[in-house]
């Protein structure tokens, strides 16, 4: 806050010369046709990410050598702003001559850094950082297609701030170790929340499952309960005074420790889809997986068993609803 925040700038003034040049003259813009890929002896991969209705969409084309997994050519098409076009261009460039397995390691931060004029000056203003995230997502999508795996499997940890790539675990640790209470502090320590701001609280450019304010809320509740407890003793929180996120985690934990094993033994499994507070009741929506789905007892005996365990370990007002 202060002077810099009082006068809004033109976001374009904060673009690096490279971003400007690439927007005006993208180098890897174009298509690879099936025939062109085959002529190179490669396999064509076409991956899309985003949507015009969201304001950004990108299509990535790869010609991959099926013997070596090397990306022989890489091109893009993009519906988006200048940053989206420039970062798609750099992304396509960075993919070239890498193996698919190595290309997946390219992140939006690599893309942003590659567009800088000097190493220490960001190439785009903070609110445009999310445009480069899409460049990262589309690579995962393309790699997932080529390797025939779920593109989410490339993500090893849960990322809360996609722009700065800060994980849930990192954030929790930093908040606790430094006793952080505001979003500004989190941004100062981790850069999370300093870019497109979607991860700070609901209502931003994109919807998220977990926001920074949830983490602060969770920590402040923990701290309140811990009260004067000395030496960082593990605080225990009453289920009813937990945030919905905390409740969700507690329920997951109980399922992992007390229920899942029972289902897996019969070749099945379950997943919590949603949790809603419904007056005094807490409704937990679940879906059965494997042999549990379709099993007759899944709506009777098994269901009652699951509900009873959760009632006992968490709260009496829990209802479990199979979907």
């Amino acid at each position, binding site marked *: 806050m202060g002077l810099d925040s009082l006068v*809004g700038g*033109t*976001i*374009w003034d904060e673009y690096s010369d490279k971003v400007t040049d690439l*927007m*005006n003259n*993208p180098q890897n*813009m174009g*298509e690879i*046709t*099936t025939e062109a890929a085959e002529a190179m002896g490669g396999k*064509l991969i*076409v991956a*899309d*990410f*985003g*949507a*015009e*209705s*969201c*304001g*950004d*969409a*990108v*299509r990535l084309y790869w010609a991959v050598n099926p013997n070596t997994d090397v990306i022989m050519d890489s091109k*893009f*098409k*993009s*519906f*988006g*702003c*200048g940053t*989206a*076009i420039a970062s798609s261009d750099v992304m396509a460039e960075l993919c070239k001559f890498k193996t698919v397995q190595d290309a997946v390691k390219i992140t939006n931060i690599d893309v942003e850094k590659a567009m800088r004029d000097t190493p220490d000056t960001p190439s785009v203003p903070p*609110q445009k950082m999310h445009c480069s995230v*899409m460049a990262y*997502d589309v690579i995962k999508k393309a790699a997932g297609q080529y390797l025939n795996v779920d593109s989410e499997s490339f993500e090893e940890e849960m990322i809360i701030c996609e722009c700065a790539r800060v994980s849930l675990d990192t954030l929790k640790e930093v908040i606790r170790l430094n006793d952080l209470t505001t979003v500004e502090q989190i941004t100062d320590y981790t850069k999370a929340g300093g870019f*497109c701001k979607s991860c700070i609280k609901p209502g931003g*450019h*994109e919807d998220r499952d977990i926001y920074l304010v949830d983490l602060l809320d969770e920590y402040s509740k923990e701290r309140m309960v811990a009260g004067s407890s000395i030496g960082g003793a593990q605080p225990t929180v009453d289920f009813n005074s937990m945030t919905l996120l905390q409740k969700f985690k507690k329920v997951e934990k109980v399922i992992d420790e007390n229920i899942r094993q029972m289902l897996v033994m019969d070749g099945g499994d379950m997943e919590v889809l949603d949790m809603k507070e419904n007056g005094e009741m807490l409704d937990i929506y679940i879906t059965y997986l494997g042999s549990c789905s379709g099993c007759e007892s899944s709506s009777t005996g098994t269901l009652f068993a699951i509900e009873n365990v959760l009632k006992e370990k968490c709260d009496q007002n829990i209802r479990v609803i199979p979907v």
Partner: protein
Amino acid sequence: MKVYLDNNATTIVDPHVFEEMEPFFIKKYGNPNSLHAYAGETHPHIKTAMERIYAGIDADRKDSVVMTSGATESINWVIKAIYFEYIVTGKKNHIIVSEVEHPATIASAKFLESLGCKVTYLPINSAGLIEAKDVRESITDKTALVSVMWANNETGAIFPIKEIGEICAEKNVLFHTDAVQAIGKLPVSVQENNIDYLTFSGHKFHGPKGIGALYMKKGKELMPLLHGGSQMGGHRSGTLNVPGIVGMGRAMEEAVKALDFEMTELRTMRDAFEDELLKIPNTFVVTPREHRTPNTILISFRGIEGESMLWDLNQAGIGASTGSACASEDLEANSVMEAIGADEDLAHTAIRFSLSRYTTQEEIDYTLATVLKAVARLREISSSFAYAPEGHDSGLVAH
């Protein structure tokens, strides 16, 4: 070549206006409320300016047209004073605004909502217009205020102010209209339209920035928002912005003089420009011309994200907009495009060209040529028109 086509955001100051303001910075700089000749010499100029402003909106001498810092202040004044006089006292509990009002209105209404006031947000129809019958249906015996803009800043859509004014008069509900986009583009008469409150800014009709006004009908005066030295008859405290008032007075006079030109020649230029733009395949405009201010075009180019179009225009020296200039730093879809329920793929593709009486045919020709080049270039880049192998499910997902 430099071309300014963002006149719904702000306008060039008319040179006559600038000239008339100049003496009030270095020569006649007295505070009008002081007791000496420095003050006295400003009074006739302020009076002339006020008379021009009264005439420009057809206000009666007994009404109050209070000078403010601009339409944002004026709008905040209306809505917050209504809260203090009617809502907090429990006399009423409800106000009505349209969903495409300027952020000054929407944010003020949301603020009242946070304080417990009920707010109805009137929808626009697929032509981008408010329907008067919706106003009638939304009014309850607890409605304190209806606030609907005269013309929309993004589409130029003209709303049925006369009908809404009649409904409000019949139902005994106060009526405010934000006339920021109407002054200088349409004939504006508060008396012919049953208007209780009307707000505007000088800089939208070739006056200076930092000056605007609130019109309040006789007998409907609102409590002040700014308390202090009781300037403006106690309605609005704060040392008078003498150059601003003088400038807006002259700008109003010039705007009234130029109204015929705007409604005929400027409209013709706009229409011809729009005809040419619409020859480009896959382009769309929202509101029919006859329901629009004569200077505005909101047009969508399918497959081209609005900001990238602005980029290409800006590289060529052309200033246009994706909607409200207030929002140019945020990344959201054009709110009007969302409100009319346009094809959602078009929500991020709208570009607004807003002309003024200073726009030349040469500038329009240059802009058209630039747009044609930009459309060709950006559609070449766009994934919307790109090759996909047979059987490829684009699978574009929300992110």
